[in-house]
């Protein structure tokens, strides 16, 4: 399985890092780490450029992060017309991991504030597509 059902529109499907999708289907948002040099990667990399190793291991992103910034997008690009408005956000998590995802529709825009606590969770979209999003943490 590749990225063909990831997000609202998939622009490409094949990648060594596609195990991410398998984990996502199992309810886990994962990052990779190089067992040789210990560097971790999100978005996940299937290779470690730090030590040039092609072997990495997966680990789950757990715990709470905080909202770094966001924007309410009123006009999406082609294929995203039905999604808008949607809220894109960056969340900072442990270990220097930063994630871009949408804020859950559960969160009222009046509640959004810099530094608010977040968790990242898989999101099964009605059309059978899969993604991840931020919920209040």
């Amino acid at each position: 399985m590749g990225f063909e059902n990831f997000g609202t529109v998939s622009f490409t499907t094949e990648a060594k890092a596609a195990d991410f999708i398998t984990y996502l289907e199992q309810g886990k948002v994962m990052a990779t780490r190089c067992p040789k040099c210990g560097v971790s990667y999100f978005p996940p990399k299937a290779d470690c450029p730090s030590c040039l190793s092609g072997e990495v291991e997966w680990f789950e992103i757990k715990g709470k992060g905080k909202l770094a910034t966001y924007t309410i997008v009123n006009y999406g690009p082609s294929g995203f017309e039905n999604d808008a408005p949607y809220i894109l956000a960056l969340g900072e998590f442990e270990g220097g991991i930063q994630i871009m995802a949408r804020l859950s529709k559960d969160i009222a825009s009046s509640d959004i504030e810099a530094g608010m606590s977040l968790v990242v969770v898989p999101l099964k979209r009605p059309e059978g597509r899969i993604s991840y999003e931020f919920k209040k943490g």
Partner: protein
Amino acid sequence: MADVAIVGAGQTVFSRSCGVSIRELAFDAFQEALEGLDITTSDIDASIICSAPEYDKQRSPAGLISEYLELTPKPSFYVETVCSSSSTGLRVAWSLVKSGLHKVVAVIGFQKMSELSSRDAAERMGRGADIIWESPFGLTMPAGYAMYARAHMDKYGTTEEHLAKVRVKNSHYGATNPKANYRKELSLEDILKSDMITTPLKKFDCCANADGASCVIVARGDVAKGISEKPIWVMGLGAATDTMTMAGRKQLTGLQCAQEAARQAYKMAGVKPQDIDVAEVHDCFTVSEILAYEDLGFAKPGEGAGLIEDKETYADGKIPVNVDGGLLSKGHPIGATGGSQIRTIVRQLRGQATEAQVKGAEIGLVHNIGGIGQYGNVTILRR
């Protein structure tokens, strides 16, 4: 001492829809760049063609434009860093000359964005981010810059009014620029009440797509003196890259690629921010200009908004910025934009700016960014 100079710089009018082919567009910019120069086409040793390929129907336009301008059989190739492609072209031209390979090199940037339907153009927008990890969420260029704007506001108290004041200034200068697409002066109210695109950026916080071409002719110092009465010297070049993903960014209140490019350019030129007499910065959005003030050291981090508030970036201010109207007024024909910025600074340093000439300008700076802060380019020029 600089020994590479810009001897000519031209551009077409930037418009929403030029109605001509890309080769003909390139010709118009080329023609203006060669005006008054004591050379002909056959003196040009190489050409660098710059655009963003997603908007080109023509594959490999370098060969096409070379043929149209009769630059063959001299080498020609294509260079791209999205919106900063022609600044990258200048950097490469500089090194081709400095290395001794060539004496005179033409850098031709163009984009005919009207060639695509708006639906096709919007589709390209979606593929500008990392297409595996971030495009599927609907990340676009405005949304990326909007996240920088929000972070800057939250940390430093920058307001939507501050952003709007950048557009007020740029629309003021754009109104008198005959090459600009958008030539209407806008009031603070016009801007603040315009349609919200992606919070906090409104319609008038954003530059518009355009058609246009630009051309910069670069020459070895001794040659430059022979062919041009007013060569403009390349003093400093800086270039840096940041991550494609927003997730990878280590700072959200400034563009690290611009900070690093500026550091390199100042060092190479041996000058400081306060030595710059006039600057062109990449105002693809109003917030981008405020980030640029800080990233270039014209203001301390967090103090960019104060600079526009105090009108210090107007033509008679401490550091005039985008007194040709900027991308916000001129429009943003991606591959042509850097060359247009360079042209403005060349004209300023020659004392030939027909609109807002900064008196006695000796040192100028061009800040040109590709993508959502992926590619930073800073160039320092001296008369």
